[in-house]
């Protein structure tokens, strides 16, 4: 970060300024004059938190995608299908066992195994043929989507979170002042805060593994120079398997989250694949912090857009992507090839 500040003092100042204004908007009570211009603070806060928690969901899906591309140069366009598959399986598990929490490890293992099979039986035979691998992922996504349609049909499914997580919780953020002068604090769905917390924990854990463990070092070396890593005697296939399994499992778990926040239905796979694409284009390929920042930006722009300019909220997202592509094609935190 210090390097960035030194090299780009103007940008660093701008970002610090925006962050300061933003924090003030969130934490300081709004005067009635402000509320006339900007609308009610509660609406604003809901949009912000909605964006941040949506960003958490996008991060969970996109981080697996970016790892798989960063290391194996495989644009896995079946990633969205893995997300939806995980969601459906999670639904089945939570329906039958009544436990929301149990769904997570089961889905992680099942979808992770699917990932292992794919990497070992399919992609390994096409080592180095990036385009062909991508084509296979497209074919797989079509096949898996139709199979899921066959089994679960076209209706929407929602996964129910456990009772003690359902319902709102109170946050230490001022959302308004009542007529009697009492301070009203923001109340927000507890399950969304739990997911946000979990995403942050997972993100930090991933960062730690990547930067502080031997396995992580192997993965980072492989992202930098795959041939060198293989030439140095490392069984690179095991590293690939581990990364693909993890990325797939993570996407599957994200499916459970999406099924809880929103719902599961055909078409959600495409939607989350596209979200992953945009997040990774904006944040930078192969970068976990990039995926986090990209997910945050996209989540916020989508929610804020939905609240304040509903007709064109989706366009904002793609506008951001186009601007990044035009001025910094490798993504915000990506490495220039």
């Amino acid at each position: 970060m210090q390097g960035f500040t030194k090299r780009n003092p103007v940008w660093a100042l701008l970002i610090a300024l925006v962050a300061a204004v933003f924090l003030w908007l969130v934490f300081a009570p709004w005067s009635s004059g402000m509320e006339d211009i900007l609308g009610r603070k509660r609406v604003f806060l809901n949009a912000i938190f909605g964006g941040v928690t949506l960003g958490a969901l996008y991060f969970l899906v996109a981080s697996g995608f970016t790892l798989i591309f960063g290391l194996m140069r495989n644009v896995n366009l079946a990633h969205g299908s893995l997300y939806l598959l995980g969601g459906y399986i999670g639904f089945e598990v939570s329906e039958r066992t009544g436990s929301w929490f149990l769904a997570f490890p089961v889905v992680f293992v099942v979808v992770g195994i699917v990932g292992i099979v794919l990497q070992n039986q399919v992609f390994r035979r096409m080592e180095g043929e990036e385009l062909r691998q991508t084509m296979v992922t497209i074919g797989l996504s079509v096949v898996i989507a139709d199979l899921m349609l066959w089994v679960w049909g076209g209706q929407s499914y929602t996964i129910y979170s456990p009772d003690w997580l359902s319902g709102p919780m109170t946050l230490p953020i001022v959302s308004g002042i009542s007529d009697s002068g009492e301070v009203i604090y923001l109340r927000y769905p507890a399950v969304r805060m739990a997911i946000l917390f979990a995403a942050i924990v997972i993100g930090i854990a991933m960062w730690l593994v990547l930067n502080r463990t031997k396995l992580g070092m192997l993965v980072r070396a492989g992202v930098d120079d795959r041939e060198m890593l293989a030439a140095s005697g490392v069984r690179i296939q095991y590293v690939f398997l581990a990364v693909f399994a993890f990325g797939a499992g993570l996407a599957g778990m994200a499916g459970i989250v999406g099924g809880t926040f929103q719902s599961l239905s055909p078409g959600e796979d495409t939607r989350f694949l596209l979200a992953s694409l945009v997040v990774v284009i904006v944040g930078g390929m192969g970068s976990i912090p990039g995926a986090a920042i990209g997910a945050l930006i996209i989540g916020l722009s989508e929610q804020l857009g939905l609240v304040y300019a509903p007709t064109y909220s989706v366009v904002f997202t793609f506008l951001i992507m186009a601007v990044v592509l035009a001025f910094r094609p490798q993504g915000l935190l990506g490495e220039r090839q």
Partner: protein
Amino acid sequence: MALAEHRKTAPRGLWIERIPGIWWALILFLLTMPAWANGFFLFQVMGWTFILGMIALSLMFLAGYGGMVSLIQMSVAAMAGYMVAIFGVSGVGDISMGLPWWLNIPIAIIVAAIFGTLVGALAVRTEGIYTIMITLAIAAAFFYFTRQNYTVFNGYSGFNLVVPPELFGVDWRQPMPFYYLTLGCAALCYAAVIYVSRAPFGLTLQGVRDNPRRMAALGFNVTAHRIAAYTFASVIASVGGILLVWQNSQIAPGTAGIPAVIDILVIAVVGGIKRPIGPFIGALIYVLLRTFSPDVLLAFGLSGERFKLVIGLGFLAIVFFSPDGVLGLWERWQTRRSRNHDPLTGDPK
């Protein structure tokens, strides 16, 4: 295939004489098809084949000659279709401007070509494998935008009652005239691609595909050539798009939805992206499967809706066993056949 023959060989005949016999048989077959095929086959099956073939041809041009796999072709085609509806006549009177065909068609092609060029400008500055991602994301943006915008694109409903102009007293939407119209356009686009591939434009594009670093070191502006390729490909896709809106007599956001975008890629890859005839072969296979597989599936006791599964599995099989598509299979079969025959006498070994 050389640019110009080595001076010592005998002078070559006209280019017409160099077309092998099998092509003449095909041309004759296609020209006389209305004599024995019914209206449905001409309009739906062959019309669709030529239209999808043209759009997939524009993908093949970028991928096969330029090394850039772009998923924006269907969106460019849809943009052209929308422009014909918006600048011409349609059932949505408040938006359509009613300009005559000799205005709305060129405008549509120009607007769509500009759109394709802009997308190309965004997509070419990154490594090859990114192109798929970026063009897919932009295609999705196009879909969502046309679905949400009501002032220009009429949102969810799109435009209906968009028909070809009545020229020379012919209703071009009748099966036989439409068949010849699409056949003619497809043949023109095909010929254009073949011709351009050996002109400096096409040759430099292939050089850029094979070795962009060397091309830069030979004095070529590699980025400009790639973007220009998108422009050329967009013109071809636009022609397909205009014919598409005339065939359906309507256009809606779903025309360029993600499934349709992926279908074009499937068509190009299944047929083979190395030669321009590949996309048309792929389109024929796709259209035949789509038209007849529900009946075949029902005969096997499965729901007719599972044809997507059939296409997906077929696509997977092709990518696995023959990444060059059907054309690749054909070429390998030819090579194996010639290896099994004595090169002098042609007898089997």
